[in-house]
């Protein structure tokens, strides 16, 4: 059954909110009529119990990480510890006004300072700004930094190299930053095609944006050579940190030669994803990029106290209001303090172990779902559904939808683009072996079922609150608000 929208519920005159009493003398005409709204917005009219029940019932129509396996590749759906929600909700954090004087926000600034230091150490790039609101926001910061760096040296560079395996946000960011995307090919091992890179790496290149391990789950062993090529033409090396969960405490972007890295605190550092945010995308940079970092910065003064100040005239400026998504900082800082160096490394090792184990378990169906590149993987891996489509008559999408009937969230599908019928699978370190076994078995069951009757998968899901939805129709005649 469907659930009516909140605008279809309630009745005129119902309410939850009770206004505090008007405790000051009523004065008429404070807001002239010509500035006044004639009719108030048609918000819902419900009692509190109705509101609670409506949203609780809606919540039950969501799949969530606390209920099942969520191997969405490139998204790092790891456990979200509830400690983090508890500490983030402490009034000293949650009710702290962003314009509070730094003198009276020393705890918050120290937390941010500590988090900056930790992220600097993890990435091997010492200067950190926590300001960006999400990964793509961090990317924008990074590309603007690269642009500012070159401009400061009197150079105008217009191109940004991105591998064809890159996240879609990379090219979009480049365009927003007023630069031009130049694609670089992928070699047979799943890494950057060095010849193509050399051919395209010219004096007009501002930056190479790279993820390593990349979206194929492959660690590019040529990274040192790549860095050399890029640096040799005076360009900047940008690290997309979406895949950082593979390498914490094992290797560091700074040590690989990267100048800029962004973090997704909502991936490796457990900020819950909230159904599409909030996130947080701090960046860390090398010495030479530091003068361009966003304002304001957290500074520690000689007396040990912390302040928020604009520290460089070369800064690219602000990317948003206030200091960033502090609530996310609290959570990620708690995570880093909980795990420490040993725990973070163990998390990455376990993530890679889990991914390789699942890959091995799926070796039984490699005939239909072969690994796209290599033999091992890092924290995630890409299978191709092309043989399955050809031989069993079900597409990757069908497999994904049928997985829903088995109680699993499907992997990322049809990404990366260069793998036909791709399935990008990231189990994360917080899943048990039993869960991985169960998932592998479900895939086998679905393939066996498809060999008998592909129609079942083609028309899946069958057990969800709604069945496949008409997305094309939605886009053609968009209904994006409740008609009234």
């Amino acid at each position, binding site marked *: 059954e469907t659930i009516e*929208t909140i*605008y279809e519920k309630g009745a005129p005159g119902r309410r939850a*909110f009770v*206004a505090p009493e008007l405790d*000051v003398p009523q*004065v008429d005409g*404070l*807001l002239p009529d010509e500035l006044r*709204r004639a009719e*108030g917005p048609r918000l819902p*009219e419900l009692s509190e119990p109705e*509101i609670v029940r409506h949203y609780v019932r809606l*919540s039950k*129509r*969501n799949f*969530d990480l606390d209920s099942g396996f969520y191997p969405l590749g490139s998204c790092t759906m790891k456990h*979200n510890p509830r400690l983090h*929600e508890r500490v983030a909700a*402490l009034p*000293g954090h*949650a009710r*702290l006004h*962003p314009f509070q004087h730094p003198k*009276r926000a*020393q705890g918050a600034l*120290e937390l941010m300072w500590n988090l900056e230091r930790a992220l600097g150490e993890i990435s*091997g790039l010492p200067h950190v700004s926590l300001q960006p*609101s999400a990964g793509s*926001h961090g990317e924008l910061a990074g590309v*603007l930094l690269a642009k500012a760096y070159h401009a400061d040296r009197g150079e105008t560079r217009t191109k940004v190299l991105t591998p064809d395996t890159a996240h*879609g946000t990379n090219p*979009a960011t480049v*365009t*927003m930053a007023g630069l031009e995307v130049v694609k670089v090919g992928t070699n047979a091992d799943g890494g950057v095609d060095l010849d193509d890179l050399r051919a395209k790496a010219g004096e007009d290149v501002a930056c190479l944006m790279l993820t390593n391990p990349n979206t194929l789950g*492959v*660690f590019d*062993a040529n990274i*040192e050579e790549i860095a050399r090529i890029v640096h040799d033409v005076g360009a900047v090396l940008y690290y997309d940190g979406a895949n950082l969960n593979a390498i914490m405490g*094992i290797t560091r972007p700074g*040590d690989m030669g990267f100048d800029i890295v962004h973090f997704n605190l909502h991936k490796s550092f457990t900020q*819950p994803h909230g*159904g*599409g*945010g*909030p996130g947080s995308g701090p960046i860390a940079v090398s010495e030479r990029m530091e003068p361009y970092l966003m304002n304001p910065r957290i500074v520690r003064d000689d007396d040990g106290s912390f302040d928020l100040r604009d520290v460089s005239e070369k800064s*690219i400026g602000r*990317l948003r*209001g206030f200091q960033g998504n502090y609530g996310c900082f609290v959570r990620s800082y708690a995570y880093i303090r*909980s795990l420490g160096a040993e725990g973070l*490394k*163990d998390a990455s090792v376990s993530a890679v*172990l*889990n991914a390789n184990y699942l890959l091995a378990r799926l070796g039984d169906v490699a005939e239909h779902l072969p690994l796209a590149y290599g033999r091992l993987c*890092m924290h995630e891996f890409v299978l191709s559904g092309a043989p399955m489509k050809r031989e069993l008559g079900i597409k990757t999408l069908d497999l994904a939808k049928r997985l829903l009937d088995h109680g699993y969230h499907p992997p990322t599908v049809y990404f990366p683009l260069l793998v036909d019928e791709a399935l990008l699978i990231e189990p994360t370190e917080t899943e*048990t*072996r039993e869960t991985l076994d169960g998932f592998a078995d479900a895939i086998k069951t679905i393939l066996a079922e498809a060999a008998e009757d592909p129609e079942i998968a083609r028309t899946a899901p069958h057990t969800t609150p*709604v069945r496949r939805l*008409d*997305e094309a129709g939605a*886009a053609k005649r968009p209904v994006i608000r409740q008609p009234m």
Partner: protein
Amino acid sequence: MSTYTAITDADREAMLAAIGLADTDELFAAIPAALRLGRPLDLPPGQPEQDVYAHLRELAARNVSAEDEITFLGGGMYDHYVPALIDMLMSRSEFLTPYTPYQPEVSQGGLQVMFEYQTAISELTALPVANASVYEGPSALASAGYLAKLVNGRPRLVVSAGVHPHAIETLRTYAQGFGAEVVEVALRDGATDLDAWRAAIDDETGAVFFANPNFLGAVEDAEALAAAAGGGTGDERSRPVVIASYDPITLGILKPPGECGVDVCVGEGQPLGNRLDFGGPSFGFFAATEAYLRRMPGRIAGETVDADGRRGFVLTLQTREQHIRREKATSNICTAQALNALGGVVYLAWLGRRGIVELGELLLQRTHYAREALCAIDGVEPLHRRPVIREFAVTLPEWAPVDDVVERCAAEGVNPGLALPEHNGLLVAITEQRSRADIDRLAAVLADAVAEQAGKREMTGASNGRH
């Protein structure tokens, strides 16, 4: 150290055997030896949950929050009461932990929430289309600038000095990227100088930006500002886009942007049921006229039907987005603020159709009362006399430096508002949590603080006189 992994020694052995490796180091064979970090990360040792809690609590205790003082701080974020049902709903696993709803069949809850949220924003702004949230207020305004760039390509952005300074700075940063010049128009008597505004708008102008109420709390003449740029009329590609930032809490009583000729309305959603959180996460809202629908950034949920004809919701118009259009996308935004937007729509449902008007009226009355009370203090003057709804600005006498006055008030447990050093002034915000008694206390504390400064001046004067 704490751990959230489940791999026992026995598990590890069995898993490595299945993979065909001898130890976990071999998993990382692809990483050149020279790049391996040959030491532990230099981080404090991992701790049990109770110790991490104690540490974070100790840090929290060193902040003075709105729980610890009577605060009149505003300037973009406000200490509104967040009803308890919002905490409950936002902390439900089903809303807290999912990813963006890529699989709509198992995400109908989140998608319907987005649809309901979009409707609420559309109603608030009286604009027909809204997205499912952007990061927050200032970057929403900058993103609207990028939309203008995509729509008409013109290189000049005219922005009222009444826009939040963070938003102006953010717009400058973004514009530096996508290639546009930002021209600021000053205020006169607290509101955008309409003559200067008209004069600043030319054929090269891609967008105009104002805020309502503006940063100093003044209600702007939105219709006149929009009309100056032809807002809401004619072919939207042949004129500047009229972009306005609104405080959503005022929209129960303030004429909505959609009725004033505004093309794109953005704003900071924090006042709608979101915590202060020292600045985030909150959400930005983004609404527009129909003409801009396919240029909007961010996610949009749409209604559709399933294979059995039942109503359902999906992410729609995804051809705008970076995972399909890549470098041709209307924005790079991906993860936005879905959970915070949930808080927003639950808050609006809680306020309800009548509540949002009642709340606006209450704030209007109390804010007026507070302005009168403060301006009754010797030497304190309104910074402007425009209508105000929930925030106002005053100047202090020149002999009472605002920073000193603020410190004095803070020592009394009252945060009198945001210092405006360039005016030797204060920006004072009112919420439904600040009662008349709180306002009276502010007035008393502020009067004492100002008088104390007067006393200091006299003493210093006398002392100077003696020498």
